[in-house]
């Protein structure tokens, strides 16, 4: 029964593996963009101006309250429509161009990831003792120095558990992108099911692969947390 998971023309092993590659690439491409959005929105949430804070709160409320699949379709279809009307405006009657599903998927996932990450990062900033920042000011550090030497190293420590959970969620949410025709693990599994007519076997294998990916990530995250906390006394 393992024949059908062999590599090459007779088995689905290589197809599933290429799907896994796309899944990992999706998650890896989303992470930096999502973190950047998260940092930016966290700054908005902590801004002095009421307007900026309202924008930040509005963004996180919206993105955390909508189903991920709705966000995905809004980005995929919405940007597609916008591009179409844009190209019609400049080249009437032209064929126009479509947004690539991979880019749409990464964008939607990053928008959602950023909203959740903003709350985690804000929590991390709040957890930094005020006295340390004052101490930095007292010995004449510039705001940039305070950020790089005091805030950021500790932010990492405080935010890592939360960001780790978000990473696990992101890995799983990449499966949604299969709905808009990205050849990730989920979609390659669907293709294999279409040919072999063994849905349970193949979806179980797909589940197992995601599971291993998550367990592997959990181990790596636990190790990163230990490393981030190496200079801190255990309570």
């Amino acid at each position, binding site marked *: 029964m393992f024949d059908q998971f062999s590599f090459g023309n007779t088995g689905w092993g290589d197809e599933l593996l290429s799907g896994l590659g796309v899944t990992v690439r999706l998650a890896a491409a989303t992470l930096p963009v999502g973190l950047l959005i998260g940092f930016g929105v966290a700054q908005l949430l902590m801004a002095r101006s009421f307007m900026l804070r309202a924008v930040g709160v509005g963004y996180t*409320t*919206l993105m955390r*309250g*909508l*189903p*991920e*699949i*709705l966000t995905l*379709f*809004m980005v995929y*279809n*919405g940007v597609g*429509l916008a591009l179409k009307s844009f190209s019609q405006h400049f080249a009437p009657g032209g064929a126009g161009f479509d947004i690539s599903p991979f880019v749409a998927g990464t964008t939607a996932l990053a928008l959602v990831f950023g909203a959740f990450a903003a709350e985690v990062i804000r929590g991390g900033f709040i957890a930094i003792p005020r006295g340390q920042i004052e101490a930095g000011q007292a010995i004449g550090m510039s705001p940039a120095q305070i950020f790089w030497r005091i805030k950021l190293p500790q932010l990492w420590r405080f935010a890592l558990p939360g960001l780790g959970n978000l990473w*696990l969620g992101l890995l*799983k*949410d*990449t*499966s*949604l992108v*299969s*709905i808009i025709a990205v050849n990730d693990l*989920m979609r390659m*599994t*669907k293709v294999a*099911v279409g040919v072999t007519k*063994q*849905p*349970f*076997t193949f*979806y*179980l294998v*797909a*589940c197992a692969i*995601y*599971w291993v990916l*998550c*367990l592997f990530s959990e181990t790596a995250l636990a190790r990163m947390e230990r490393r981030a906390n190496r200079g801190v006394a255990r309570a």
Partner: protein
Amino acid sequence: MDLIGTLLANWPRLLDGTAMTLKLTVTAALISVVITPLLALGRVHAGPVAGGLLRLYVSFVRGTPLLAQLFLVFYGSGQFRPFFQEWGLWGFIREPFNCCVLVLVMYTTAYQAEILRGGIQAVPRGEVEAAQAVGMTYRQILRRVIFPHAVRFAWPGLGNEMIILVKGSALASVVTVFDLMGRSRQIFLHSFDFAIYIWAAAIYLMITACIVLLWRLIELRLARHMHPSSPLPGASP
């Protein structure tokens, strides 16, 4: 983009989809109310074998995408068609709505059980001992001491799970259930009218806002003995 016109043209189908989303969510939530406490107690008390199986179940559900679980049950059940037919379950499992509820229940109970387990383990040991000392049976202790505390501790976390459940129910649209997501998608594919997604988003936000509000109200009621300003009716001063 004509928001009002889109709403006027499509409100019956949007309403229909919203009703289906609520039906999916509420059915799954009500079933999980029965299963979650059993799983949570199992996680606290079970022996090595049953406990291991429960841990495996929770780890599997939390480590795999909801969409993959849905496909595993919805399409995967076809591989065991003779088995299901023999047991008279084929009619049940073939129905997309039932599959979605089943998967949503599996998904949410795994998370909820962990939250409630935290609540159960946070109940002060002394209160349980006091209940034993006055001669309560285990069932009485569960009903009068452990669960009232545990549910109160777990309440905010359970509220988050309800919101995740609403959002998760949108995946039902992938297996041909016409919930709010499915209806909006259907309308969009016919009209290419982006405004329909805006309305869908607004309705989803309204549903989650209602849950947040409801949860806050019940939370206040669960903790009413913690607010001395509002004495219980009939309580002696």
